[in-house]
């Protein structure tokens, strides 16, 4: 069933994943055609120590310029490639990572976002494994003692509270996605894909244990990325909440690219709507300007167009970003709270647009 180099990779990984007397070695557990392992520790990617996610040796943490919003969760991302493998540089699309690659993304909340360095309670770690038959994903929910995370294939909505940066108590209906819900965002026309790891998202500094470095440069020096230009020659996605990285339109478009375009890209789940929110979309109508909604139902809220230039209050796109009603809120999954800062940015962008709709 397994052929060629894939066999070697998978077998080596299976052997590595066993818990022996030595330190755990990272493993693409679940990369074969079977199911995902029952516990996160089978991957030996990360553990939690003193309320911090700690990567295992050989596992590289990274950040993105403009990440997906997930109810204000703190996120910790890692990547691991099988030894000796690398991904070719791609300038303007997602990176193509080799079979055996494992991404993790851990989601947590401090009790009070106003407290610098407050301990984070980690809720879940999501894993994407590039298996022999494609990418597959699952979420592992951390136990109370933060010692082990257990596969929760069916997903669950968790209710808890935290105090946000402005001192307001927030109570999300936090979604741990089912494996089928993973596909709601990660499946593009039936194929599971990665979303965050793109050159423009990784072209940023990261404070590694041994010093700060550009992520593209670090991935290159570690040999997991090949053919990348120097960072100044690579695209860089603006940081949505850092005005030094771009003007309002470019930061608003960066936010929509990161938070909407995985469905709204013409081939993803929202392809039936005709609304395309890729950062590269140049047609104002496809981007929503004076575009009537197709199957928005009550989410249209009596307004005629996705975006009305100069009128964020009449723009369905802004309304759906603001709402927390399940049938109205966008993105459809993973946001039960309003991302106030992002709504402000997109509102500012729409308010400054010129022109009018019929």
């Amino acid at each position: 069933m397994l052929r060629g180099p894939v066999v070697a990779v998978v077998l080596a990984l299976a052997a590595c994943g066993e818990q022996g007397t030595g330190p755990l070695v990272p493993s693409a557990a679940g990369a074969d055609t079977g199911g995902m392992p029952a516990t996160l520790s089978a991957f030996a990617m990360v553990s939690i120590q003193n309320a911090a996610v700690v990567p295992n040796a050989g596992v590289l943490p990274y950040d993105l310029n403009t990440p997906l919003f997930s109810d204000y969760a703190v996120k910790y991302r890692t990547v691991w490639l099988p030894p000796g493998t690398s991904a070719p540089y791609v300038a303007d699309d997602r990176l193509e990572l080799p079979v055996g690659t494992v991404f993790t993304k851990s989601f947590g909340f401090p009790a009070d976002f106003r407290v610098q360095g407050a301990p984070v309670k980690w809720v879940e770690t999501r894993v994407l494994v590039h298996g022999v038959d494609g990418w597959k994903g699952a979420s592992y929910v951390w136990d109370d003692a933060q010692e082990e995370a257990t596969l929760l294939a069916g997903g669950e909505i968790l209710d808890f509270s935290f105090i946000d940066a402005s001192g307001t108590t927030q109570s999300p209906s936090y979604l741990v996605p089912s494996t089928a819900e993973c596909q709601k965002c990660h499946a593009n026309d039936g194929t599971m894909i990665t979303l965050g790891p793109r050159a423009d998202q990784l072209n940023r500094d990261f404070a590694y244990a041994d010093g700060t470095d550009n992520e593209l440069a670090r991935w290159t020096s570690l040999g997991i990325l090949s053919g990348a230009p120097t960072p100044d020659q690579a695209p860089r996605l603006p940081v949505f909440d850092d005005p030094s990285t771009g003007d309002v339109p470019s930061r608003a478009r960066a936010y929509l690219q990161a938070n909407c375009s995985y469905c709204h890209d013409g081939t993803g789940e929202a392809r039936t709507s005709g609304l395309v929110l890729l950062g590269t979309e140049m047609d104002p109508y496809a981007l929503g300007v004076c575009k009537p909604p197709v199957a928005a139902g009550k989410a249209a809220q009596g307004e005629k167009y996705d975006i009305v230039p100069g009128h964020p209050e009449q723009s369905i796109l802004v309304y759906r970003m603001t709402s927390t009603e399940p049938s109205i809120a966008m993105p459809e999954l993973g946001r039960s709270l309003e991302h106030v800062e992002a709504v402000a940015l997109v509102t500012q962008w729409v308010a400054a647009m010129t022109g009018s709709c019929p």
Partner: protein
Amino acid sequence: MAAVATVLGGACGGSSSACIGSSSPLCTGSGRCVAIASCAKESDIANALASDADGDTVAFAAGTYEFNNQLALGTGNGVTVIGAGADQTTLDFHGQQAGEDGIFAQSVSNLTLQGFTIKDTPGNGVKALGVTGISFLSLGVTWTAQDSTDGAYGLYPVQSSQVLIDGCTISGASDSGVYVGQSQQIVVRHNEVFGNVSGIEIENSFFADVHDNNSHDNTAGILVFDLPGLQQEGGHDVRVFNNTIHQNNTANFAVKSDIVSVVPGGTGFFVMANHDVEVFGNTIDGNKTAGAGIISYALAQQAFTDPSYYEWPKTISLHDNTYSNNGTLPDALSQVGLLLSTGMAEYPDMHVPDVLWDGIVDPALPAGTDPLGLCIHEPGASAVCNMHFDQIDMNNPDAGKTMVCDPAPFACTLPALSPVTWAGLSP
């Protein structure tokens, strides 16, 4: 922090459950059987559906199951989700906090949903995207409120093919009870739809048979639409026959700006844009605005910039339908209904003619008595009228003054469209 800890402790319960077994009288296929009893935990049920393997049957015993998350199906092909009957098994989504649809499936083949009722989803009852072979059999979809807070669509296959909707009962959808969008090879039959804004809507779709349905007490009975700006356009080869389209007089409760919000209450049937549509053998009665209409997207008065979209109906055949008591009191809350109501005094028998064409013609076509190829043979209709909405003076509208009621221009026949079928479709 304490709050988080408490909840997380609860989240890590065992995944095996005595309430999920492996045999059920509802499982008749050769594949694995996942038998769910009403004591099952939501996350275990969700896991059963998310982890479905090819050929699985997921069987819900009689009872009510409450969900606070949508139920998303995994990647299994040939999967059946079955209940003990629409009046026995209820999936209740009134507490749903995540996701727009009750049940969601995408990109699989040969999915069957059968014998249960879906209740009070915040959005659509079932959405199936890009599914090849999807059967909705003997399902119920309903909302308690029956107003604009209800979800948009009851059953919503989109960009799917080999779609069968058979024997379902759907009420309360704030857009359409049955909504088939951008799909191909479609059979919608033996369903009862009522109390929705639109009972059945076939939109931007190819090769559909809609027959033997009972569509009553909606705002509009059956609609065949084509809209601009979508990946599949130019709806065609749609047959609507042997349906009962009765007393669709519910006031329109769609959210304003939704395309169906412009539809007048009291509408029986109409086709907008599309080509090659055949409508016959239906009983259309008691719809107070109008019985049957053939219209252009221009009448919806919505701007569009899609150069590939064709906004006029073409080669439409209406024949041998039965009409009674339609058009007696047009819905004046809608613009079109109001327009129709202006001509009451001039209409034959003082009611809106049973068969209407808006008279709006593609200017690129050569002039003629019937440039769009509309063939209408309706001896049972009170009148067949070109309403000439293209000529009406909107400052002083009187629909009765511009209309020309004469079946002669439409006295042509079109070849009967072929029945829709595919391998494995039961007759």
